[in-house]
């Protein structure tokens, strides 16, 4: 590798890192402001106009904070864990295009690469939990493993549906295929599965079970503070951005927009960012609305609803492809299945028998047994 190539590589890495950091700063501000307005609060207002400098202040505070280390942690694993979470989330950006031909390395197996790397960050969470030698952290780490692995399956199957439609794992080609109709219209079922499974992958509300503050007080991150904690934080928000941009690329037509030429990269980036931020706002909206699921509810939703639905999605896509039916037929099948499942689930919720509890306010002395 020549000196010039090395320099280029380093500058590209630094550029992506800077870009992602700016995105994360904007996301934290946006989330606090958006959630605040949803709860009739104002969100940050004091630092800068509209509190715009709040994320900068937060970042400085996190950097300046003392990095605490409890005496019984497994040091090497403890310090490596944040990197094990962060590096995969950073690596997937190698092949995510943000406009036509604007990507670090376009790969034929791009989607495969992204999915392979996004699973890796679970290792970081588990090791973080284990190395902290803290009960809450260990429980949190195991919860993360259980949750993320089980939601990986519907996520991959939803992506598989798109791959079957586009006949390619190359994200550029997937987007180019959507120049007439976006896949959200052809495959709404896939979009719903991908979005829900994506939320669970991110560990965001209502699936924030591994960092649940009220149960495991921050899960794998309990013992971390200062800069090391902020690496986890950074990874979480980059992941949010990644899932949102994958939603846009796979289902919402990426940088394509009717009437906007995709030859100009700047316009493409703008369209892509607008769409991605819209998806992120939906994620924040969901966070502002729903309470956290219990772990058994999460598991039953994943294995009993989403995994079968994802298989059905793959099967109807295969049928549609094999018989070369028109696109609207897949839309109808997809919507019909979605409506049927929602109807069935809501019917079960309504008719579920309420558990009966009998509370004895007064127990006569004669009934109290002292024999045992």
């Amino acid at each position: 590798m020549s000196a010039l190539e090395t320099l280029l590589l380093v500058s590209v890495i630094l550029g992506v890192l800077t870009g992602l950091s700016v995105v994360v700063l904007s996301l934290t501000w946006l989330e606090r402001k958006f959630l605040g307005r949803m709860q009739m609060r104002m969100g940050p207002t004091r630092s800068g106009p509209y509190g715009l400098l709040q994320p900068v202040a937060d970042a400085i505070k996190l950097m300046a904070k003392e990095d605490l280390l409890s005496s019984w942690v497994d040091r090497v694993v403890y310090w490596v864990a944040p990197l094990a979470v962060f590096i995969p989330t950073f690596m997937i950006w190698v092949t995510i295009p943000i406009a036509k031909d604007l990507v670090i390395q376009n790969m034929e197996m791009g989607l495969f690469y992204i999915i392979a790397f996004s699973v890796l960050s679970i290792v970081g969470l588990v090791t973080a939990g284990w190395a902290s030698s803290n009960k809450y952290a260990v429980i949190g780490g195991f919860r993360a493993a259980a949750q993320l692995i089980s939601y990986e399956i519907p996520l991959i199957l939803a992506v598989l549906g798109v791959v079957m439609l586009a006949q390619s794992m190359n994200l550029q080609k997937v987007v180019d295929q959507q120049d007439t109709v976006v896949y959200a219209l052809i495959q709404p079922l896939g979009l719903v599965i991908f979005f829900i499974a994506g939320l669970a992958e991110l560990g965001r509300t209502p699936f924030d079970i591994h960092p649940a503050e009220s149960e495991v007080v921050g899960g794998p991150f309990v013992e971390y503070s200062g800069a090391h904690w902020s690496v986890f934080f950074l990874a979480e928000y980059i992941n949010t951005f990644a899932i949102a941009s994958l939603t846009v690329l796979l289902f919402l037509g990426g940088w394509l927009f009717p009437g906007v030429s995709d030859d100009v990269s700047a316009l493409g980036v703008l369209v892509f960012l607008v769409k991605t931020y819209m998806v992120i706002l939906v994620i924040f909206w969901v966070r502002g609305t729903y309470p956290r699921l219990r772990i058994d509810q999460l598991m039953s939703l994943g294995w009993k609803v989403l995994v079968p639905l994802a298989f059905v999605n793959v099967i109807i896509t295969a049928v549609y492809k094999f018989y070369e039916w028109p696109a609207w037929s897949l839309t109808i099948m997809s919507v019909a299945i979605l409506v049927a499942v929602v109807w069935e689930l809501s019917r079960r919720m309504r008719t579920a028998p309420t558990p009966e509890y009998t509370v004895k306010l007064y127990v006569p002395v004669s009934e109290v047994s002292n024999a045992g």
Partner: protein
Amino acid sequence: MLGNLKGLLVTLSTFFRHPVTYQYPDEHKPIEDRYMGFPVLMWDAKVEEPYCTGCMVCVRYCPTQCMTAVMKDNPLHADGKSTRRKIVDSFEINLGRCILCGICVDVCNFDAIEMSHEHELSKYARNGNRTNLPKLLEMGKAYQQESGWRPEKEIKAEAEAKPVDEAAETKEETVEAES
């Protein structure tokens, strides 16, 4: 399931409402007339002296013992300008210890102490709110101007005088109507 969608709509509609937050240090809500702030001393503008005689009733009843008062002979009484034989010489309230209970106001025989609208007195030092007589009177004058305060005795005297007059007036009216 439909409930979930309804929940999303609720948060969305809340999003478009204006926040109810007041930006407190920048934006002050008007204080109600009956707001009970820190106790201050009243100023008798007619004779140019405080109402307080330094009798120490409030000092003795104060549950947190945050007040001290010293009495002196009133020079204005010697000149024949005032009816008060004794007058307050020095008075101090440690407002940092005051719990705003209002007992001092209830026990005062001279309407000399009142609960003002004063409430933003944060200081950096622990004893930064020890307030002396001139300062208390200054706060009292501000409160008097703001609220149009009059001594309780004056109001009572007027109230006793009024019904007699009104009764007399109504009698005269009825007499006129009959004739």
